[in-house]
């Protein structure tokens, strides 16, 4: 009997997800033992044509990371969806846009200008990448950029979501174990559309810091203050995204003295991550005076960046039909 097939692909992402997969250490041997790795551009040589030749549903498990930045990303997402039984939206980029999704704050023109004509770019002739170019040998083409970055589930149906930037290795190992057990008939996969490899509570729930009453008179940046290492960071006026962020990372950042930046995405039941954080942050401001509230809020230098660092492409406003038109 041939082994079930495994694929992993990266669209608009940094490659950290692949590293996280390899970071499961000797467990990767279990992956190799249980699966036949058929397509994984980062780790092995494979051609799109090989995938195109496969039967529909031939790949058992596909971990897809990265957002939909261009039409090549979308093409491969659709192709892998067709060829895969279980399509996992893997990592923050695929689930909610992540850092590449921050480009959705600006127009496509602004984004390209920033990439090709800022002071740190050596581009004296002000070249811009062209999507097709006539060479003596024929016309060569490059993928076309989407007006905005989309998440994977805005383009294809997704079976499971696995959040994290990148997903924690112990969570990946647990998911791999689960899928292997399910293939052997020893376990059951969660219902379709579920979030796997993460908790269903918030980072605050896992955070070891002590929480008392939050009453904030001033927001400060963590690098500008001497934060108490045992006390809740938000209580100390440091913008920590824990209250709206999904658990599953063992509160890694707050435990290490840094604020949660929200890479595990919205907690269970949160529709719009940023909106939930607006509620959480504003509620604990200790003032009833509009001017003082404004002064306190000035301490949050870039609120949209704070609240949507990972979630912009998946946010209600930026994922709306009107915004998707670009």
């Amino acid at each position, binding site marked *: 009997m041939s082994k079930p097939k495994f694929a992993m692909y990266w669209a608009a992402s940094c490659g950290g997800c692949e590293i996280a997969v390899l970071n499961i250490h000797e467990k990767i041997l279990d992956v190799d033992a249980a699966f036949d790795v058929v397509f994984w551009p980062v780790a092995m040589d494979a051609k799109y044509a090989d995938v195109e030749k496969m039967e529909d549903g031939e790949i058992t498990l596909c971990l897809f990371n990265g957002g939909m930045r261009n039409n090549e990303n979308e093409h491969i997402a659709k192709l892998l969806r067709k060829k895969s039984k279980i399509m996992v939206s893997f990592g923050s980029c695929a689930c909610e846009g992540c850092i590449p999704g921050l480009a959705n*704050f600006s127009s496509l023109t602004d984004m390209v200008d920033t990439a090709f004509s800022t002071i740190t770019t050596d581009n004296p002739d002000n070249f811009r990448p062209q999507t097709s170019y006539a060479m003596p040998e024929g016309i060569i083409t490059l993928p076309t950029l989407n007006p905005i970055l989309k998440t994977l589930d805005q383009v294809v149906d997704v079976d499971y979501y696995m959040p994290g930037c990148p997903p924690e290795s112990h969570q990946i190992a647990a998911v791999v174990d689960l899928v292997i057990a399910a293939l052997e008939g020893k376990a059951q996969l969660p219902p379709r559309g579920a979030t796997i490899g993460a908790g269903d509570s918030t980072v605050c729930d896992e955070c070891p810091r002590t929480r008392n009453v939050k009453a904030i008179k001033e927001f400060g940046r963590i690098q500008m203050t001497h934060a108490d290492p045992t006390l809740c960071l938000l209580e100390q006026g440091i913008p920590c995204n824990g209250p709206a962020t999904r658990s599953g990372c063992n509160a890694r950042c707050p435990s290490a003295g840094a604020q949660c930046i929200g890479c595990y995405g919205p907690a269970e039941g949160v529709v719009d991550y*940023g*909106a939930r954080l*607006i509620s959480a942050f504003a509620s604990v401001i200790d003032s*009833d005076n509009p001017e003082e509230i*404004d002064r306190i809020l000035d301490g*949050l230098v870039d609120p949209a960046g704070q*609240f949507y660092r990972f979630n912009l492409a998946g946010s209600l*406003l930026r994922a*709306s039909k009107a915004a998707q038109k670009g």
Partner: protein
Amino acid sequence: MTEETKPFEPVIIGFTCNWCSYRAADMAGISRMKYAPNVRLIRLMCSGRLDPTFVFKAFAGGADAVLVSGCHPGDCHYSTQNYKAMRRFHLMQRVLTQMGIEPGRTKLLWASAAEGQIFANAITKFVEEVRELGPLNWNTTTAAKEVAPEIPAEVPAEEVQA
């Protein structure tokens, strides 16, 4: 009338609290006051119930503006929750601006149950202000333009060398 000559009628979603502002709207109705029909009111028990998600969903679903209305500060039926609404509103407006939605498209209005006239006048004024702004334009209003001036034009060379 053709599409071009039809005046732009803004769609405004209004969130009112059960105890003051919804009753102000009621009062305006009972008193047969006339005001612009562009606002669709949704009653909440308290303005403090207003989750910014509601506002974001309204904009995402095609609203041109959102009105949030509650009891006057100090008069909240649930003692202090309208202050909470105020804080959230201030922060929400900042985020919306960065997301490309002008501050003029959201309005916080205090109206007691007796202030039907104030409520009606405020709505008529708000509708005209939003009509002036035009339909919500997702293409041109980008946060990059709002944030850009804060980044220094000249990147200090000393910092780059490190």
